[in-house]
């Protein structure tokens, strides 16, 4: 399987990374170089093997339903590029 220019444009859009048109073709080559190399995974017989999700073998930790956090809006917005009245600001969204 290899990617073409349209695929690269589509995944760049999905990943929200601007990709100038002149970078599309080189990116196609770079990605295909990598995908060609990972193709060797197709040699492996994975029949009946469950995909691994975590190496950790224990029960999921759980918290009690207690409020222990929040009340710190100042710190939450401290690193934001643009705020007003402790709201984050983004260019207007049209729904």
């Amino acid at each position: 399987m290899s990617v073409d220019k349209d695929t690269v444009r589509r995944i760049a859009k999905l990943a929200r990374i601007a990709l100038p048109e002149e970078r599309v073709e080189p990116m196609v080559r770079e990605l295909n170089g990598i995908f060609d190399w990972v193709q060797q995974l197709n040699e492996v017989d994975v029949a009946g093997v469950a995909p691994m999700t975590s190496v950790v073998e224990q029960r999921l930790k759980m918290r009690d339903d207690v409020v222990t956090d929040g009340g710190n809006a100042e710190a939450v917005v401290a690193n934001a590029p643009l705020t007003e009245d402790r709201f984050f600001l983004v260019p207007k969204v049209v729904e």
Partner: protein
Amino acid sequence: MSAAPESPKERSKLINGQTGPWEIVIGLEVHAQVLSKAKLFSGASTAFGAEPNSQVSFVDAGMPGMLPVINRYCVEQAVRTGLGLKAQINLTSVFDRKNYFYPDLPSGYQISQYKNPVVGEGEVFIDLPDGETVRVGIERLHLEQDAGKSLHDQHPDYSYVDLNRSGVALMEIVTKPDMRSSEEAAAFLRKLRAIVRYLGTCDGNMDEGSMRADVNVSVRKPGAPLGTRCEVKNVNSMRFVAQAVEFEARRQVDILESGGSIKQETRLYDNRAGETRSMRSKEEAHDYRYFPDPDLLPLVLEDAWVKEIAKSLPELPDEKKARFMKAGLSAYDAAVLVSERETADYFEAMVRDGADAKQAANWLNNEYFGRLNKAGLTVSTGPVSATANSAIVQVVAANVISGKIAKDLLDIVWTEGGDPRAIVESRGLRQVTDTGAIEKAVDEIIAANPDKVAEVKAKPKLAGWFVGQVMKVTGGKANPQVVNAILKERLGITEEG
């Protein structure tokens, strides 16, 4: 799905187009906010209406290096809801990341459950006004995080983002496409709301957004395969659900009948315009790239824990209704009483205090609920306690006061409060059963109205006038049966009384 509708009942749900009848097929995706103090994966508060970004942990803000740890109580609430929906509880479920970009989605992904939800198939029965019961299948229930809130009307150029809701636990409850009319959809939502409120897993408050519905609507010719559906978002009241379904079904029928085809899309319900419209922001084809969240492990529940939760489940509306009917209530009365847990509890408190079940139900449905409605109150906020209403029903049943006086008594308790029994005594509301006193009143009225006596003798049905006069004279306190018996005797009426 079901075959072509044949019964008149089913036929009545069809909507008519120029090319004949169409069937509406409806499925719902309901987001119900889990009643919990803290969020699903952080220790920030879930309380409604706080200052912007004040109930946000660094986890909820998607800060670098922050990690989720699940709230046990939220899991318990989801299990409890699943049990209330008579659903399969999956002892192993998985949290996935649903990846998309949106300003109120801080991490760029929502933690949700995709392939392996915590709750599987279940069912809900809804009662329609005509007495029909419809089964609506539940497809699944899963836990997920809520997003933050974007405010678009604060500034001409900017949207304002508040993350207080970000990370609040939601249960997404998905139905099978089993509903066939806007009434059924609304009835389902009402029933679901009642169930989660009985369970205490969601407050069902649609105004504050703690229960929201996305409605999937398609239309088809009766008996035809399912049509292409549109998902209508932002439907935030029972009334809007009905309106949105009606509008959307009509829109689709019009398109199909004019030779067009339905485009599968997400539409927004605009309650001011009463219409649905295509959502510009959702136009782009979605590719959510779900994968198991590597920050979490599979959620494995112990069977014993689930059984413990099952044991702690309260009696739910369907069981309660059956029990009320066994106690002699009509299906309608029972359904009204169980529609809200508070109402059922109120009714049961009246019965516990000594009122007869049927009489208590009649009293509530005929007298008290009407007054509450008019005043915009509920049983919890209304001024008359269950004990007081029970006392009123009991003094009527014991013939201490008449039904008419009971209404006056309710008025007094409503405005002034107090113990109904004491009021009956202190204000002399006891009905007069002293035959001598009633005979005297009857005789005086007969003596004063010879013309009326003549009329009644010719037309016995007019005896009611005399009853009214007696009541007037006795201040409504005369026992109506006694009055009737004496009148019959004095006026010589034989049978019609």
